[in-house]
């Protein structure tokens, strides 16, 4: 094997190693582009000594390594930016979100007020029995179960991961479930923006 061919092989290996930092969709093309520059460097007749040409090829590889480091850093930064902006808006407009939240809170207030009224009317009577309380507990458990099943079957949820929403539903029942249904749930009519699926 000639010295030039060996230099070429080493440089190709270095470029492949550097390209591993890049995202998969551009990796092959970039690797091909930089590898294609090597023959021009190694056969550059303006550099007299083949030893110096090899050094130049190695310097080229070092620069490629620096390039991939920079490119991957900027990609990561931009993807972090889009992800955090999606976290904030969750793919719905803020005004829309406030409306949903208001509806959710009204529902919650009605449910709580109704529960308290029913409880006070039924438990302060002459023949108090535990049935209304049990019925309400059963309703709350049923509602939580409905929310959990909905979270489990949803393709995606807004703002938080699924397990976080599940935790909120369990810890703050029934308010957590209502908040999930009003802002965390992705309705079937309105699919999530495609960029969010990358998570």
């Amino acid at each position: 094997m000639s010295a030039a061919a060996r230099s070429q092989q080493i440089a190709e290996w270095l470029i492949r190693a550097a390209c591993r930092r890049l995202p998969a969709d551009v990796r092959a093309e970039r690797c091909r582009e930089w590898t294609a520059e090597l023959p021009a460097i190694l056969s550059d007749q303006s550099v007299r000594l083949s030893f110096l040409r090899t050094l130049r090829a190695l310097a080229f590889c070092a620069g490629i390594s620096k390039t991939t480091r920079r490119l991957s850093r900027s990609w990561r930064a931009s993807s972090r930016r889009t992800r955090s902006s999606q976290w904030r808006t969750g793919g719905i407009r803020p005004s829309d979100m406030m409306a949903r939240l208001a509806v959710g809170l009204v529902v919650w207030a009605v449910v709580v007020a109704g529960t308290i009224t029913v409880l006070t009317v039924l438990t302060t009577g002459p023949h108090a029995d535990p049935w209304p309380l049990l019925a309400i507990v059963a309703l709350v458990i049923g509602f939580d179960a409905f929310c959990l099943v909905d979270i489990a079957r949803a393709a995606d949820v807004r703002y938080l991961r699924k397990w976080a929403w599940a935790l909120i539903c369990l810890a703050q029942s029934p308010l957590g479930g209502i908040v999930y249904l009003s802002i965390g749930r992705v309705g079937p009519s309105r699919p999530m923006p495609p960029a969010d699926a990358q998570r």
Partner: protein
Amino acid sequence: MCRLGCVKLTRPLERVLRVLLADPTAEHYGYDLMKATRLPSGTLYPMLARLQQEGLVHSEWEEQRTDAAGRPPRKYYRLTADGARVARLELAQASTPPTSTRRVAARTAQETPGSAL
């Protein structure tokens, strides 16, 4: 859209633009540009990537040649029409004293309303 105006015209960037602008239709491959600009690959390629992202530079794969040179196809870079315009403007501003820079920018902004950004 973010154009060259939002980054500082550094000395390496200026050199790349001068080489590309010497003949805006000429196609350059990476090593060719490295030699012409005397920049290392670690400076040149990130810059090309950024210019390409902003639509100022266009890259194209060389046709697969049939003659037995044994060389893999290269990627060639050249300025887009937009890129040539922006580069000329930037270089003109860089080479004129700062007092007249504003006038140049104002004049070009009048000529091409809305596209001077």
